[in-house]
């Protein structure tokens, strides 16, 4: 399978005034490869460098050294983002727009023709179960509905690669289940999904492969079964990999 997302020796340093000019190294030579059609879980504790990696992939942060590419195109080129969909963590979409207007706005940015945009909007609102609320202003939506409209906007261009930053964060169990179902459906459609999450149970259920980073360094990468190894579950394996002392069972 060909690599859709790739980073090579990716290093990101932030100069910090608080640290009196001492740069903070967010990523230390990260090597990643996500193949077409797989659901890839990107795990790590808070501050590990997950969001920084995503920010580099999306062109928000320039790498200090190393390279990152999407579909073989350098991430600094805006065209690299033509075939991706991105769902950030906890976003509050334009509250003065309706879901339909929001999706139409993003469709325009992708240059979708009117008829194609209409078809995609209908399809996506049905997928995220927001058809009944399509004409309602987003300010009246619940948190779960906002997250689902976010998922719809990430899919408006029918992307080949979906980058999701903690897609189930702040959702109730029902909302999480719905998001998980959508990811599963996308996987069945052959889409590539790259997502970060703290919900290890969810990662175990949905992902083909996972990578674990800690303090900007890649600690493990492989199939869920390989990472779990002799541990009871992914959570135990994760804690051991990041060096957190786990209580031994009696």
């Amino acid at each position, binding site marked *: 399978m060909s690599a859709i997302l790739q980073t090579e020796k990716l290093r990101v340093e932030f100069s910090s005034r608080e640290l009196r000019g001492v740069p903070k190294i967010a990523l230390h030579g990260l090597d990643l490869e996500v193949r077409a059609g797989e659901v890839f879980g990107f795990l790590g504790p808070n501050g590990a460098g997950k969001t920084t990696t995503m*920010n580099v992939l*999306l*062109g*928000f*942060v320039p790498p200090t050294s190393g390279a990152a590419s999407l579909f073989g195109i350098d991430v600094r080129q*805006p*065209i690299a*983002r*033509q075939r*991706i969909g*991105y*769902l*950030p*963590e*906890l*976003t*509050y*979409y*334009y509250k*003065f*727009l309706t879901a339909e*207007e929001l999706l139409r*706005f*993003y469709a*325009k*940015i*992708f*240059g979708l023709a009117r008829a194609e945009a209409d078809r995609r909007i209908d399809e996506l609102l049905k997928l995220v179960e927001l058809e009944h609320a399509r004409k309602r202003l987003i300010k009246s939506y619940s948190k779960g509905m906002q997250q689902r409209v*976010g998922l719809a*906007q*990430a899919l408006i*261009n029918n992307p080949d690669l979906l*980058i999701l930053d903690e897609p189930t964060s702040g959702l109730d169990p029902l909302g999480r289940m719905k998001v998980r179902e959508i990811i599963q459906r996308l996987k069945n459609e052959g889409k590539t999904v790259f997502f970060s999450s703290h919900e290890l149970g969810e990662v175990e259920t949905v992902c083909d492969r996972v990578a674990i980073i800690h303090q900007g360094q890649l600690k493990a990468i492989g199939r869920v079964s390989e990472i779990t190894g002799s541990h009871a579950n992914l959570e135990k394996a994760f804690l051991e990999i990041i060096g957190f002392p786990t209580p031994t069972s009696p």
Partner: protein
Amino acid sequence: MRNIFAVAGVVIKELYRRKDFYVLFIVTILICLVMASVNIFNDAKIARYLKEICLLLVWVSSLIIAITTPARQIPAERENRTLLPLLAKPLTRLELIVGKFLGCWLACGVALLCFYIFFGALSATREHEWPLLQYFQAVMLHWFMLGIVVALSLLGSLVFAAPSSNSTICFVVVGGILFVGRHLDQIALTLKEPVRTIVYSLYFAIPHLELFDVRDLVIHNWPLIPWTYFCLALLYALAYMTVFLTGACLVFRRKAVN
């Protein structure tokens, strides 16, 4: 251009779905109608006072819209994190800034048109005439002046984090230019070096917004401004808009997204 118009469309939608414009418009109408209903000092030329008050209100209202609308655009995008999915799409930062500017400027234009239609109607009830060319010149100059203010406020929104501080600073700067700007050269003459050079430089560097204030043209039904001067004034405004927008793009290019 497609991306720029898409961003501008959202800004215009925001303006007509918010209450700001309606509040300002209704307040202007109410004050003008109250003023129109009373006949102060039994003056035959009271219509001119009425026009003056109405235009002053239009100017104040339009400046409020032109400063506060762009001031909150990028900070709100950052605060609500909508900047992230937006820039994750094939949209450049330059397109975003130009789109925001265009949206705010067009929205100001629409608001201005509503105000001037009301003003025209109010004048017509008293003077029974529609000097359309005078109105056209007044509206266009006013709109282009607002373009400078919008670009300035957008630049300010990238420099100052809070929309409120940016709005306050912009009101002070714009007010200062309108009231003191034209006198800076005379003030410079009374000062000693090096302050004199600094004030002189300031006089030539600031956009002279007072040039666009042609209220007297419509209040006193003066003859039209020569079209050459009119076009030069519009070009002058466009030059300042370009300068401020270039500054905004340069600042935004270096700005962290989150």
